[in-house]
C-alpha cells in the first residue's frame, strides 16, 4: 500500500512521531538542553519500536490559508456545539435522541479519511462509529437529532467537513480524485437519498 519501501524513507516516515515524543519528553523535564533532547529522541525511538506504532506516509500538502480556515471553522464549531450541548444537557437530556448515518466519502486517501473521521469526532455532537475504508463509507453518530429531517443536515455537514480537509491537506492528485468522485456521486447520491 505504501511506496515508501526504501529504509531511509521509512525512517523519514517515522520521524514526525519520534519528534513529537521528543518534544513531549523535553516538556516533561522542563528542559530543552541538547542532552535532554537526545535522550528524548532515544526514548521516543525506543517507545516507537516497542509499541510498533504505524508510520505515517507523509503524502500531504499544507495550504496555510485553507488550514487556518479549517481551524477557525472547527474552533467555532466546537464552541457553538458545546454551548448547544450544554443547553440540552441542562434542559431535557432524557429526550435527546441521536442517529447513525452512513456517508459515502469521496476521497480514497486513507490518511485524509482518518483526518476527516478525527475531525468529526473532535466536534461536539458528532463522532465516528465506524470507518469502512474499502467501501469509503463513514458511519457517524450525530446528536441531537430530533427526527428524520435532521438526518440530511448531518450528512451534509459531514460532506462539508470532508471537503475542507481535502482542500486543506490533500495533494493535487487527491483533490483531482475528490472532484471526480464528487461529480460521479452527485447523481447517484441523489438517487440514493431518495431510496432511503
Amino acid at each position: 500500500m505504501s511506496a515508501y519501501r526504501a529504509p531511509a524513507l521509512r525512517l523519514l516516515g517515522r520521524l514526525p512521531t519520534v519528534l513529537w515524543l521528543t518534544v513531549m519528553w523535553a516538556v516533561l523535564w522542563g528542559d530543552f538542553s541538547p542532552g535532554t533532547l537526545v535522550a528524548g529522541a532515544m526514548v521516543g525511538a525506543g517507545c516507537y519500536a516497542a509499541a510498533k506504532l504505524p508510520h505515517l506516509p507523509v503524502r500531504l500538502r499544507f495550504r496555510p490559508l485553507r488550514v487556518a480556515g479549517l481551524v477557525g471553522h472547527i474552533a467555532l464549531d466546537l464552541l457553538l456545539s458545546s454551548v448547544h450541548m450544554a443547553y440540552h444537557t441542562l434542559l431535557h437530556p432524557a429526550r435527546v435522541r441521536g442517529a447513525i448515518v452512513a456517508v459515502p466519502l469521496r476521497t480514497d486517501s486513507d490518511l485524509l479519511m482518518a483526518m476527516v473521521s478525527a475531525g468529526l469526532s473532535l466536534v461536539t455532537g458528532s463522532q465516528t462509529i465506524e470507518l469502512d475504508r474499502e467501501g469509503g463509507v463513514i458511519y457517524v453518530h450525530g446528536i441531537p437529532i430530533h427526527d428524520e429531517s435532521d438526518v440530511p443536515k448531518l450528512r451534509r455537514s459531514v460532506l462539508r467537513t470532508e471537503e475542507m480537509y481535502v482542500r486543506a491537506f490533500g495533494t493535487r492528485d487527491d483533490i483531482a480524485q475528490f472532484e471526480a468522485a464528487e461529480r460521479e456521486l452527485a447523481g447517484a447520491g441523489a438517487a440514493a437519498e431518495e431510496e432511503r
Partner: protein
Amino acid sequence: MTATDWATAVLMPLGALFALTGTIGMVRFPTLLGRMHASTKPDTVALVLILAGAAFQLPDLRSALPLALVAVFQFMTMPVLAQTLGRVAYSRGMVVSEHLVTDELADDLAKREAEEGRAAEDPRRAEAP
C-alpha cells in the same frame, strides 16, 4: 488587576463552566453515546480555556509553550478516544436503538450479513475463492 489578569479572570471560569456542564451531561444523559458527546468534547473546550487563562499568568511565552503543547495534545488525542469508545460501544451493543432516529450502520451490517449468508449457502461460491 492588569489586562492579563482580566483575561484569566474571564477565561478560567468560563472553561470551568464548560467542564461543569459536561460532567452534568455525563450524569444526566440516559445513553452511553449521549454521555460521551456531552462530556468528552466540552471537556476539551474547558481545558483549552483554562490553559489559556493560566498562560496569561505566566511571565513569558517560553514557559507558556508547554501549556500550548498540552492543549495540542488534547486536541490530537480526544478524537482518537472518542472514535475508539464509539466503535466499542457500538460493537458491544450498548447503543440503544430506541434513542436513535435511524441506524444506517445496523442496516448495512444486516445487508452484509445477508450477503455472506447467501454466499455460504451457495456451494459453488463457497468453493470458488
